[in-house]
């Protein structure tokens, strides 16, 4: 049927598989083993309600003894009359287990196994331990700073990290790898700390240094480099879900147009080593904690990014899920539809978390130098809907809210034993009336000064033109062919001059108008009693501006009438009359100071379309108070009594130094997650993080100073360790890793000296990326737009990326061997390599240097020989016959960029 040889293998494999499967089934029938066959069924299907977490009907199924003890109805595994079998097989809907909606029925095979086991006497191990309780779960227990083991071994103990790991080495008969060589470590360190390779100067400087002091100095240097913040910002942007905006065509639907301000805040904060806990607090609640600090308001981009034009549920679901996963390492999202099956998180807890965020929406803060947020602004969170109720959705269905009770904001209290300390925050005047911010008045004034200057120049020009036209009439010049008569032209120019005068009058009015409004804005805030006269003055100033506007409009209408230019609104005379009426009306209102003045605008709400896709929802206004819910959450998360955030943070940091985390389930530290092999190490690092004032740079330094981080990655001669710990769970070697997408691209640019080190600012749009030499961090990166080169190397997914993939796929080979980036960089790379050579003609020296720079190791003679041969071949194979050495070197460099070790850290 199939012709391809591949398919033949396919069928052979299938037969092989079937043989194994049938063999297995046969074995299973003969002998049912409790631990192997029964316990996994009960664990996955029953423990959630009948285990340590919950004991519905007083029943636990997590030990044989407890099954015999039974629940409200007694023993459930009696040999002839098992209640357990009855309940999983009954046709009665009310009695059937698992209940409807809580999981599918057990399969006949599973039921059969249970029955066999019970009929055979339901035996289990004598020393069977019940499922650990929630209180016993490692991640929910308080972080106690563990004592540092006093250990001696035949390997270096640089700091307590090594002491904790050494315990496992001794216990498991492992001998750690030796320290990596200097060049390997230097490359590893530079990529780790900055995401860039060492430069020729770096290599020179370090190789000239005696002793091992170089590493410490290099660490200090790199931690102080602005490149460090860029590198680690990208890691945290993965975890915190950075995304530029996306939508349908030009319609903004997700994230924020100017979200990059948040990215810049992350970079700057990391470079300044701002405490991790402070960063968490500011991202969740800078608007409540520092409402007047535009710099730190950028942090709430973390929340502004979750904006979704059309649907509040999707927006808040993502918010609750990822606040929980990124800061706490818990999967509250599992409790959206039902109580959590593994952790004590009730469905109502999920909605209590949602209630914390229910009031928040997004607005753009107008920046200094801008008059609105059309082209730039700081997207930030604010509580716009403090009274919006949160309801539990029955089985998670948004169509089915339980309106019998409004859910109050709250958190799963089992985590730290504390609840939210809620108190609303009265906002400073500038937060609720952002037009009060001094830069708003400054910006408008500067803008109007420019307009005024333009109007003045316009008037000069108009006067001059009118003078020329009237001179022409006086001089009796004839009309131009097909042109208007000099008299008509002069009349037009006269009216144009009037128009220009009115324009200048308006411009002259605008600045005092804005200033009067600003004074009134301030007066209302400062002193309500005495503000009346100032407000009146502002109203009067606005009336004058309105009159000037009307007069300008009238002048424009009159000019149009004389010119005979057709306007949009029908005939010109009517338009003129209408304009005249408006002038009259505006003049009539001059003395009228009733009503309110128009406040200066300092921020723009980002509107939503929750109600209908065809119109924006009403603007909720900027409230005087903020609920304080997010601030309470931020404080609760970063409270020292909360055992999770420091553990979660150091696990993320460790994972990016080693390419392998301590807790494999990075966003799930709950009972379904995988515990760390070395909890003491995790806890010691967590306590170091907290004790250092949450300094991430402190933890970075600790980790890279450890012998563990400095080990070789090679498996050569490590048969014993491979056999005992094949997955390197005990870190007897540094695992080795593939560079992330950004590091691959950036290093090509850096090595060739083309990298532009400019920091921050708006992202590079997709269309300009191929030619851009900025760091990849600054590329426009959204759900829609991902750079195709970066995509090949497992670009971060914006919806969720707690850990980058390190796949090896042919698209990577195509990108590195075919992309314009590589071809364009190769000649510059050659020049860069040759620049530091004493004898540029020396091919072997060129090859050695290329290996050191691009691949981070000194080539063997064999490798040099292979490269030399290739150089010759490139010269001979060139299309032009014989290529020069430089071209051939370009080819060699191109080839080395495709070497495995270019994208690999050893």
């Amino acid at each position, binding site marked *: 049927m199939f012709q391809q040889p591949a398919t033949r293998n396919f069928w052979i494999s299938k037969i092989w598989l079937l043989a194994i499967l049938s063999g297995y089934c046969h074995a299973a029938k003969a002998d049912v083993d409790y631990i192997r066959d029964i316990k996994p069924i009960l664990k996955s299907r029953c423990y959630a309600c009948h285990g340590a977490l919950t004991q519905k009907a007083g029943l636990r199924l997590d030990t044989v003894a407890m099954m015999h003890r039974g629940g409200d109805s007694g023993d459930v595994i009696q040999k002839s009359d098992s209640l357990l079998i009855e309940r999983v097989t009954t046709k009665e809907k009310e009695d059937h287990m698992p209940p409807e909606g809580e999981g599918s029925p057990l399969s006949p095979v599973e039921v059969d196994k249970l029955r066999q086991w019970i009929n055979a006497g339901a035996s289990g191990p004598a020393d069977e331990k019940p499922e650990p309780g929630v209180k016993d779960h490692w991640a929910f227990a308080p972080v106690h700073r563990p004592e540092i083991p006093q250990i001696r071994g035949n390997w270096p103990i640089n700091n307590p990290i090594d002491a904790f790991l050494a315990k496992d080495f001794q216990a498991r008969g492992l001998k750690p790898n030796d320290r990596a060589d200097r060049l390997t470590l230097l490359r590893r360190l530079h990529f780790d700390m900055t995401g860039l390779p060492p430069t020729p100067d770096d290599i020179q400087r370090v190789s000239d240094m005696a002793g091992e002091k170089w590493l410490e100095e290099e660490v200090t240097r790199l931690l102080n480099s602005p490149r460090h913040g860029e590198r680690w910002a990208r890691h945290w942007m993965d975890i915190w879900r950075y995304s530029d905006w996306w939508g349908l065509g030009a319609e903004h639907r997700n994230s924020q147009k100017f979200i990059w301000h948040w990215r810049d805040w992350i970079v700057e904060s990391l470079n300044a080593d701002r405490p991790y806990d402070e960063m968490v607090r500011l991202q969740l609640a800078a608007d409540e904690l520092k409402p007047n600090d535009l710099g730190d308001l950028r942090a709430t981009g973390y929340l502004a990014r979750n904006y979704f034009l059309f649907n509040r549920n999707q927006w808040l679901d993502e918010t609750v899920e990822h606040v929980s996963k990124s800061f706490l390492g818990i999967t509250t999202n599992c409790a959206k539809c039902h109580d959590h099956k593994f952790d004590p998180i009730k469905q109502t807890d999920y909605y209590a978390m949602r209630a914390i965020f229910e009031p928040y929406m997004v607005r753009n803060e107008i920046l200094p130098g801008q008059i609105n947020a059309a082209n730039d602004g700081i997207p930030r969170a604010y509580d716009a809907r403090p009274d919006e109720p949160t309801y539990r959705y029955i089985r998670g269905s948004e169509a089915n809210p339980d309106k019998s009770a409004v859910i109050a904001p709250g958190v799963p209290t089992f985590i730290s034993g504390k609840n939210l300390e809620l108190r609303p925050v009265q906002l400073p005047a500038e937060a609720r009336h952002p037009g009060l911010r001094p830069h708003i008045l400054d910006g408008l004034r500067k803008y109007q000064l420019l307009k005024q200057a333009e109007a003045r120049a316009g008037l000069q020009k108009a006067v001059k033109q009118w003078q020329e036209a009237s001179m022409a009439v006086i001089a009796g010049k004839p009309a131009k062919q097909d042109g208007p008569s000099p008299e008509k032209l002069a009349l037009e120019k006269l009216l144009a001059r009037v128009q220009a005068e009115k324009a200048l009058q308006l411009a002259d009015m605008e600045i005092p108008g804005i200033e009067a409004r600003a004074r009134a804005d301030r007066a209302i805030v400062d002193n309500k009693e005495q503000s009346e006269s100032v407000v009146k003055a502002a109203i009067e100033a606005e009336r004058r501006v309105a009159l000037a506007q009307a007069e300008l409009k009238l002048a424009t209408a009159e000019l149009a009438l004389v010119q005979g230019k057709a306007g949009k609104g029908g005939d010109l005379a009517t338009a003129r009359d209408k304009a005249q009426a408006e002038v009259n009306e505006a003049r009539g209102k001059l003395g009228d100071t009733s009503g309110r003045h128009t406040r200066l605008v300092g921020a723009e709400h980002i509107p939503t379309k929750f109600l209908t896709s065809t119109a924006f929802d009403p603007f909720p206004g900027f409230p005087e108070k903020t609920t304080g819910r997010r601030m309470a959450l931020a404080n609760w998360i970063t409270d020292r009594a909360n055992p999770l955030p420091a553990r979660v943070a150091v696990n993320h940091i460790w994972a990016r130094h080693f390419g392998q985390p301590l807790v494999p389930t990075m966003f799930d530290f709950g009972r379904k997650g995988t515990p760390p092999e070395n909890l003491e190490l995790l806890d010691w690092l967590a306590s170091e993080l907290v004790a250092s004032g949450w300094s991430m740079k402190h933890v970075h330094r600790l980790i890279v100073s450890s012998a563990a981080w400095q080990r070789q990655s090679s498996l050569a001669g490590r048969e014993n360790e491979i056999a005992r710990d094949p997955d390197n769970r005990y870190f007897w070697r540094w695992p080795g890793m593939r560079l992330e997408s950004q590091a691959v691209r950036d290093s090509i640019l850096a090595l060739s000296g083309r990298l532009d080190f400019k920091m921050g600012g708006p992202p590079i749009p997709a269309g300009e990326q191929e030619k851009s030499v900025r760091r990849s961090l600054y590329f426009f990166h959204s759900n829609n737009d991902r750079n195709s080169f970066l995509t090949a190397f497992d670009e971060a997914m914006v919806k969720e990326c707690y850990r980058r993939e390190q796949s*090896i*796929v042919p698209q990577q080979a195509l990108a590195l061997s075919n992309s314009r980036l590589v071809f364009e960089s190769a000649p510059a790379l050659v020049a860069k390599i040759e620049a530091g050579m004493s004898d540029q003609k020396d091919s072997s020296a060129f090859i050695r240097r290329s290996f050191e720079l691009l691949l981070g190791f000194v080539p063997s003679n064999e490798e040099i020989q292979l490269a030399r041969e290739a150089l010759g071949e490139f010269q001979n194979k060139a299309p032009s016959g014989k290529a020069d050495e430089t071209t051939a070197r370009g080819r060699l460099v191109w080839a080395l960029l495709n*070497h495995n070790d270019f994208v690999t850290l*050893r």
Partner: protein
Amino acid sequence: MSGNEMQFSDVISRRGFNKSLRGGLFSIALASLLQRDSRANESAWSPPDGLPHFAPKAKSVIWLFMNGGVSQVESFDPKPMLNKYSGKTIAETPFASVQDPKKLAIERLVVPDANGNQRNKIYPLQSGYKKYGQSGIELSDFFPHTGSQADKIAFVRSMWTTDSNHGAQTQFHSGRHQNDGDFPTLGAWVHYGLGSLNENLPQFISMGYREYWNLKDGHYLGPAHDAVPMRIDPKNPLDFGRPEGPITQAEQKAGLDLVQKLNRVRGRSYPADAALSARMASYELAYRMQMSVPEVVDFSRETAETKALYGMDRPESKDFGMQLLAARRLVERGVRFIQIQHGGGGAGSWDAHGGLKANHARNAQAVDQPCAGLIADLDRRGMLDSTIVVFATEFGRTPGTQGSDGRDHHIFGFSVWMAGGGIKGGTVHGATDELGFHAVENRHYVTDIHATILHQLGLDSRRLELPTRKRLEIDHGNVIREIIA
């Protein structure tokens, strides 16, 4: 065996892999498995080994998807009652109960909008219809060529979904409503679950136009399981598919030979490095891919008769015809899953809110001949038995009229078809009511199509599930056994 190889095979036997699978793509799979494996948190769980779970009937899938929503009544489920009650409101017909709010409650909105509403006034059929083939299946006159293949096709007339806006496009691929987040698509699951049939070609390819909310496939399975986009352009069919700088093929070969030699030398210092072996294999594969893919979309050796069979001789069906011919050539060369989406622009070119007659006539002319040609061509080459062809769309269209001459989105009942790969031809399965409003017999949610395809490929979706990603019952769907031969 060298020590190096011993360690490598150690790893392999530890993972329980058959030795005969070593080398080539297996190494690549291995590297990513090692990575994935280290994340697994249940010893009982292991990542897929690339083998089917049970005897497969089919090996490849050609997934044709019509963007925007094809009217069921003007395609594969004609309803004469619409002509009879033309111009009447639904309430005035004997079928007023179709608008019972309880029956409409399955709808889940992202946001209420001007579309997706109930349309009350019955709009008559915009095409004639007649019986086709020995099976006598009634189809719209817009699809005469599909009709010519009716005896090889199973029509499922009882589909339903829940998103009444175009998020339904994603929903048909992933099985989940947009409000729930992003989930892997069917193609990604197949790619994740099954090994390669041809080491020279990507195993999951997409062509045509995808809406912005439906651009990716792998999601939590990882970007390695995204479809590889392909273009019908022999000069440049893949991203980075040819050098973007001046280099000859000989130079390129020499360079890549050097790289492999150097990698091999490096492997002595880093023995048992699965990533290194995988990278070397990936370079061989990439090189072969670069050489092979242009050939797939080079139709110069196809006959004029074949090209005409795919409608490539007519401008209206040429583009889609070329994609389908490429699909056949990909299947021939052992590609697992080819996803082709038809009709870009607006929210999908089939989205006939107005001018339905002209819209569907035009779109049907673009796809009808190519689809029929594909089935006929696969059949005569003996490939149809092992290739599933699916013709799906995001939802149907309302029996009532929108504006004066359109139909709105309709999630309650619509049609898709499948052919080949062990699917029973000449079959009609399921039915809508007299107005084509609700699926009333053998109702099927979109994941039932997934389940049926996976079943034919020999996969059990429950065994692919990741321990950290609990799937819902409805995500797995139910196999439509009635359409399996």
